[in-house]
């Protein structure tokens, strides 16, 4: 075992020099938008990983920090791939969604990671602990940073509180293209959330966990009240659970904010039709058809079904 470790370090040290990677990132505190010099989620749960299973362990830590308790053993069935002895990035995001969290991929830069940590959001990262041409991919959760000592704090493998030098971490992280995501409860917006990206993350949640998505659409609309996709999503989820009153309210708001959206008029028409408001339904369907666009055939069918009765 000792010999192995010695061989590994010799090989790694000698070959690291020859290995090309992304340029090192900027870990400075931006002058215009400063955040605390240090932050740490000391309460982020720790799950020592079993063999090959850093994916489930990292996920359980991130979800637990978001108030969603999942055991790594249960997550194995959702992310682990036996033949690869590991987990793939898209499935990590998907499993977070299956647990009812919004999985939000971060911009691949140190600033995004630090901002989320400053907001108390642990970040799941993909690292390559070896070399570009002989990778050892590893998921860990960054739970804190200290810019004064240039260190990061991670839940990683069997280490409950791994303190890593920022530059060493950045080298391992850069090799994955600085891939990272946060898994947050529906009522919590990521610190670095961008409008289109956040709404798109919620949309991916809608099919898997509609109740959670409904909350997250509300969160999005709290910050971006005029977002059409989020407003329509809210209406669609309400409709899906049989609440036609809430659905009608959402679609009414959608056409008020976006009278140019045929989709909004179409869905409003359908809801009004089902709620027995024939006249208003017909007018809405006609607005949709008049708007046209790629889904005109759908609008026509809606109008026909309303006018036909």
């Amino acid at each position, binding site marked *: 075992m000792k010999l192995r470790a010695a061989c590994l370090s010799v090989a790694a040290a000698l070959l690291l020099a020859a290995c090309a990677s992304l340029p090192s990132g900027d870990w400075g505190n931006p002058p215009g938008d400063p955040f605390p010099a240090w932050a740490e989620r000391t309460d982020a749960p720790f799950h020592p990983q079993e063999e090959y299973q850093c994916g489930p362990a990292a996920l359980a830590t991130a979800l637990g920090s978001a108030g969603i308790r999942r055991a790594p053993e249960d997550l194995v069935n959702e992310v682990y791939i036996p033949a690869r*002895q590991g*987990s*793939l*990035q898209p499935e990590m995001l998907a499993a977070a969604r299956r647990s009812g969290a919004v999985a939000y991929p971060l911009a691949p830069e140190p600033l995004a990671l630090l901002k989320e940590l400053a907001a108390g959001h642990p970040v799941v990262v993909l690292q390559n602990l070896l070399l570009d041409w002989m990778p050892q991919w590893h998921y860990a959760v960054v739970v804190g940073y200290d810019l004064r000592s240039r260190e990061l704090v991670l839940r990683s493998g069997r280490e409950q509180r791994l303190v890593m030098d920022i530059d060493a971490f950045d080298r391992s992280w850069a090799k994955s293209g600085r891939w990272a995501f946060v898994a947050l409860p529906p009522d919590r917006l990521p610190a670095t959330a961008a409008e289109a990206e956040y709404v798109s993350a919620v949309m991916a949640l809608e099919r898997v966990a509609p109740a959670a998505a409904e909350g997250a659409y509300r969160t999005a609309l709290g910050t971006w009240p005029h977002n059409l996709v989020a407003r329509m999503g809210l209406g669609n989820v309400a409709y899906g659970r049989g609440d036609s009153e809430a659905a009608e309210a959402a679609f009414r708001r959608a056409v008020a904010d976006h009278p140019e959206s045929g989709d909004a008029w179409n869905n409003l028409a359908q809801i009004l039709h089902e709620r027995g408001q024939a006249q208003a339904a017909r007018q809405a369907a006609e607005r949709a058809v008049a708007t046209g666009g790629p889904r005109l055939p759908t609008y026509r069918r809606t109008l026909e079904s309303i006018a036909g009765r």
Partner: protein
Amino acid sequence: MKKNSARLAPIALLALAVGFHTPALHAELVTTPDVASHESADADRAKVQRFLEQATVKERLQAMGVDGIAAADRVAALDQQEIHALAQRIDSMPAGGNITTMEWILIVLIAILVVVAL
């Protein structure tokens, strides 16, 4: 003509299957992903392609040791872009895990070579 219809039959079946797989809002509500996308006339073709990609990903997961029911659930939790990415390059995508036996052997071999060379 006959040849054509023979070719079209599986596509028709596929289209039928796609129809069943579409998460149905019962009526003709425009779904949220459709609101977000600006895809147009080719929507049906895109649906067929999505269906094929889903099948591909499920098959690959099963081939890599994930059992059938779990594989289906896992594919269902992926969004369109993720399914597309997996269908394209599931084998070359990094799998975060631990170091594998094969990698250990390689590392030790290289280390020995390096030591010998010195």
